[in-house]
């Protein structure tokens, strides 16, 4: 249907906003802030076209109404995905059941039990780079630490970390590209093959289901039946996708912030008990995830007549930086009260890994600043970010006074 045929009402203006390309750092969030203030919704002609909701209340409503805003596709430029991420691309009671299977690994209690081990991994990565006096934070610490923590939690070998870093980087480099998903497909296949091997091993040599996620999945039941091979592969694949690149991107912005805001860095150096609150403000101010949803039925919201099977983009940064909900939304307030951000989305698909993510971010900031309290950005090149899941491409840091 052409834009003319769609007869988009005046309240719902048309925009061409590229959601994949590189922009100067903070370009996405600030341009999207402007779009939000100008209109609660748009039809975006990028790719094959999709709606955008721009304000906290509508973005949250769309997430809470999962029966209307389906997760059967969540990448707006890929409305008919050939992959089936579980539980991410499921809805309703099935989705709830899959989440229940996974909860024992991601619950607050399970995550709390990992704290000492994860603190160890953070320090291990710091050990490896501290003597160099510098690192590229966008890739080195930010990619390594979460990968090692994840592999340990899942019962997988640490020596596989470089492969995971490589595969995840490749997939996210193409995720929002409307024309070419070939690199993404190749890496997704590599991940599939890896887990097919692990599954085959654990069928014959099951390990403790409390410490080995594949053994746990093999011992789990979905409506009274074991999970089939395809479901097992889909679940394993999405855990990689959901947990590693997100952490890498969020850590990148965290250190970008503290490198460029020495007054905030000094506050957490003087009082590390501020770090958990600072993590919430990092999540809000630098919200990186940009989910999509697919309409299950015709629905009108924010003046837009959305039609069944159309896609809608629900940028979490626009919600998190909405001044209707957050006073001085465009200011980073380290100890902001009432920080009800939706950086982990909302509704049933609220990020399963949110407790783990919070722990990893807190540990990263605590341990790093104990050992490398002062650092600066070490390049004259402009800092840039990519779209999809927002992330800084390169962040060279150099320590000072160490």
């Amino acid at each position: 249907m052409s834009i003319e045929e769609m007869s988009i009402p005046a309240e719902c203006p048309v925009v061409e906003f590229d959601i994949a390309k590189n922009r100067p750092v903070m370009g996405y969030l600030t341009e999207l802030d402007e779009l939000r203030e100008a209109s609660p919704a748009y039809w975006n002609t990028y790719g094959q076209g999709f709606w955008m909701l721009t304000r906290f209340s509508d973005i949250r409503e769309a997430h809470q109404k999962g029966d209307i805003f389906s997760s059967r596709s969540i990448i707006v430029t890929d409305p008919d995905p050939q992959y089936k991420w579980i539980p991410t691309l499921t809805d309703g009671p099935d989705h709830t059941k899959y989440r229940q299977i996974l909860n024992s690994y991601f619950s607050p209690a399970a995550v709390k039990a990992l704290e000492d081990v994860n603190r160890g991994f953070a320090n291990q990565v710091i050990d490896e780079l501290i003597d160099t006096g510098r690192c590229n934070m966008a890739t080195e610490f930010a990619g390594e630490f979460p990968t090692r923590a994840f592999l340990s939690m899942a019962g997988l070998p640490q020596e596989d970390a470089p492969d995971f870093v490589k595969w995840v980087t490749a997939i996210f480099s193409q995720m929002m590209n409307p024309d070419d998903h070939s690199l993404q497909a190749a890496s997704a296949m590599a991940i599939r093959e890896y887990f097919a091997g692990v599954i085959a091993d654990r069928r014959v040599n099951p390990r403790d289901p409390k410490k080995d996620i594949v053994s746990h999945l093999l011992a789990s039941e979905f409506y009274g039946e074991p999970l089939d091979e395809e479901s097992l592969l889909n679940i394993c694949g999405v855990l990689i996708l959901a947990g590693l690149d997100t952490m890498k991107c969020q850590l990148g912005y965290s250190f970008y912030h503290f490198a460029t805001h020495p007054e905030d860095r000094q506050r957490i150096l003087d009082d590390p008990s501020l770090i958990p609150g600072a993590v919430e403000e990092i999540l809000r101010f630098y919200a990186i995830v940009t989910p999509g949803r697919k309409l299950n039925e015709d629905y009108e919201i924010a003046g837009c007549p959305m039609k069944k099977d159309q896609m809608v983009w629900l940028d979490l940064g626009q919600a998190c930086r909405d001044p209707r909900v957050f006073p001085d939304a465009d200011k980073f307030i380290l100890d902001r009260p009432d920080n009800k951000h939706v950086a982990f989305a909302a509704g049933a698909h609220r990020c399963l890994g949110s407790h783990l993510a919070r722990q990893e971010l807190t540990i990263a900031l605590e341990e790093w600043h104990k050992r490398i309290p002062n650092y600066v950005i070490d390049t004259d090149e402009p800092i840039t970010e990519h779209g999809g899941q927002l992330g800084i491409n390169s962040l060279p840091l150099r320590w000072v006074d160490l």
Partner: protein
Amino acid sequence: MRIAVSESLCSGHGRCYVLAPDIFQSDEDGFCSERGQELEVAPGQEEAATTAVGACPEGAITIL
């Protein structure tokens, strides 16, 4: 002060039981144990309750 926690809206962000642990607890899946209930807030706990109201991204906690 009486508060209510919506069972349908609680999605397990966990801000309530992290910020106001004397009022809210986590169930084993990370949801608020008090969801679906109305609670009387003990004297001296009003500020903690208000903090939780302001921190819940779903708006699941309301002051009655």
